[in-house]
């Protein structure tokens, strides 16, 4: 157990390091710099700006300086706005986290319910309907879904308000973000539930005369949940990136929008900070879900 944990944590650290290295060297390979797009860059001014942000030094040295600062918790300041980056990230992430958290929550709850229903009504109409819908949902890219939802429910039917800073209405963004992971969880739950329902201990429980609801909730669902845990890590990754698109469509100023904008602006510290932040989030989510999976499933041993 301890060996496995250490191994996984080390791998995670290496991953984050590699991501930051790739990002750093890749963004420095883009021709032009953050100040080359400014109006009338006086060579003296530009040289001074570059010296101020260490941009005149060789790239590997810049990387070392950056990592040193990062270990002290200093993300630097945005080259475009001059604001402190950790402040920007905290602020924007609050929005993204709210959106993503709601989407993840609904996706898990609804996915589990729908998957269990489909498994219990196997080959009857609720099962067929659920599987049809989920197959449909995984085939629609989130940006198209978001746009169509916006068009139909906000602009044509006017059932829900359009998202704005004064009137934050998360209904449509959350729906368009959660349908894909929800469908995935539904299918996962269905197949693992079917697997569990065929086990001997379910038959034993029924033979003992245990109530149906107890068999389903206590014996079947709890065991069927195990494979679903592994999906939580990838789901966090999906929601974080999916939120880039959904935020753009609904003009929600979150971290995803900030990431795309910083790339277009060549705002080096901002690109680094957002990439590292999102990468750490994803790596930690995967790590935690894998660890929990190993802890929960008694069949898995650590060797």
């Amino acid at each position: 157990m301890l060996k496995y944990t250490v191994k996984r944590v080390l791998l995670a650290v290496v991953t984050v390091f590699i991501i930051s290295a790739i990002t750093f060297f890749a963004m420095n390979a883009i021709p032009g710099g953050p100040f080359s797009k400014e109006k009338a860059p006086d060579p003296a001014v530009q040289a001074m700006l570059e010296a101020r942000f260490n941009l005149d030094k060789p790239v590997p040295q810049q990387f070392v300086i950056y990592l040193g600062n990062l270990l002290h918790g200093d993300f630097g300041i945005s080259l475009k706005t001059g604001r402190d980056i950790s402040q920007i990230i905290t602020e924007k992430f609050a929005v993204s986290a709210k959106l993503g958290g709601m989407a993840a929550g609904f996706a898990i709850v609804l996915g589990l319910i729908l998957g269990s229903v489909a498994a219990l009504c196997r080959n009857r109409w609720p099962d067929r309907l659920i599987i049809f819908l989920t197959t449909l949902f995984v085939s629609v890219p989130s940006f198209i879904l978001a746009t169509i939802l916006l068009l139909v429910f906000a602009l044509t039917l006017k059932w829900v308000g359009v998202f704005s800073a004064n009137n934050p209405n998360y209904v449509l963004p959350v729906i368009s973000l959660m349908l894909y992971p929800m469908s995935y969880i539904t299918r996962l739950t269905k197949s693992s539930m079917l697997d569990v329902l065929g086990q001997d201990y379910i038959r034993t429980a029924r033979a003992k005369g245990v109530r149906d609801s107890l068999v389903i909730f206590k014996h079947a669902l709890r065991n069927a949940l195990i494979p679903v845990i592994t999906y939580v890590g990838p789901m966090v990754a999906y929601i974080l990136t999916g939120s880039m698109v959904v935020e753009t469509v609904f003009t929600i100023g979150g971290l995803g929008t900030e990431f795309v904008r910083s790339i277009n602006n060549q705002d080096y510290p901002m690109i680094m900070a957002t990439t590292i932040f999102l990468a750490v989030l994803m790596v930690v989510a995967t790590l935690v879900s894998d660890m929990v999976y190993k802890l929960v499933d008694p069949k898995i041993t650590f060797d």
Partner: protein
Amino acid sequence: MSNNPDVMPKKQFLSLQIDLKKFEKATEEEKTQHETMRESTTFFRDGMRKLRKNPLAMISLVVLFCLVMTIIIVPMFYPYSYEQMITVNGKRDKTAKNLAPFTYSKNELKAIEEGQEIFPHIFGTDELCRDYFIRVLYGARVSLAVGLFASLIVLVIGLLYGSVSGYFGGKVDMVMMRIVDIIYSLPDTLMVILLSVVLTQVLGTSLQGTALAKVGTNMISLFVVFGVLYWVGMARLVRGQILSIKTNEYVLAARAMGAKPGRIIRRHILPNCMSVIFISVALQIPSAIFTESFLSFIGLGVQAPMPSLGSLANAARGGMQSYPYKMVFPALFICLIVLSFNLLGDGLRDAFDPKLRR
């Protein structure tokens, strides 16, 4: 010696020669008993039979076939081109902007009154007076090509890497798999965005004037990204398959006879894991199309004037309220293509995956 088979050659002393007199010829009746009751079936034929019984997979196969035929054949004789404005009497028709499906512009109506025949705009026109139907068809062509080609890249790299790693095992395998582990844990979308931005900028200058420039730097960087990031899943799959297959006796026999590793992998191991690999390729295509449309949507996909379904949908967002059909058609095409591939892939898996066969 006579060549007549029925006549016994003279038996040598102490020879083990069979005495044919002890045997009787089979009668016609006995011969019929040996005919097979049921035609023997191969793995492939059995899988095809199962696939044919799956209505959803067959429908998606038909849909995909029709779609591919349409996007290949229709542009050959379609009167409009995807990159040029509609012309009436040799003049550019600036009134043909944002037409709804099956409507005509003022100039075209005039021309029709004068007795000209004008081909209807099945999906209307876009904001630059180009016929939308042909643009959507070209978009579907681009998206499908990206999907197929990207999956091919993934297949080739994954197959090579996975088979080498799986076959040789030991330290080679360990080092190769640690590399896979690390690439696997990179958040793919972040890397895709970053790499396509960087590659587009870097490749743009170095590719100018070459044949590859025609394909577009964005598209090439997309392929590079797939080649760099997405092969790891395939490599893991192939490695796992090979690890389980290489313990079989026939591989041992081949090795005992002195066959080289390359030949063993090609002749004995790969044919046995082909079904699993192809299913995974079929399921890779929609995910490649998804990624392409996602990148096109945030403005990193194929270059204008070449359309892809994602960039068409992105461009349509601007005038969405006034011209919803511009959003609907590319969206419909993406969904149709992805849905068909998903259903087909599921069907293939049910029919060919040895683990699911009963």
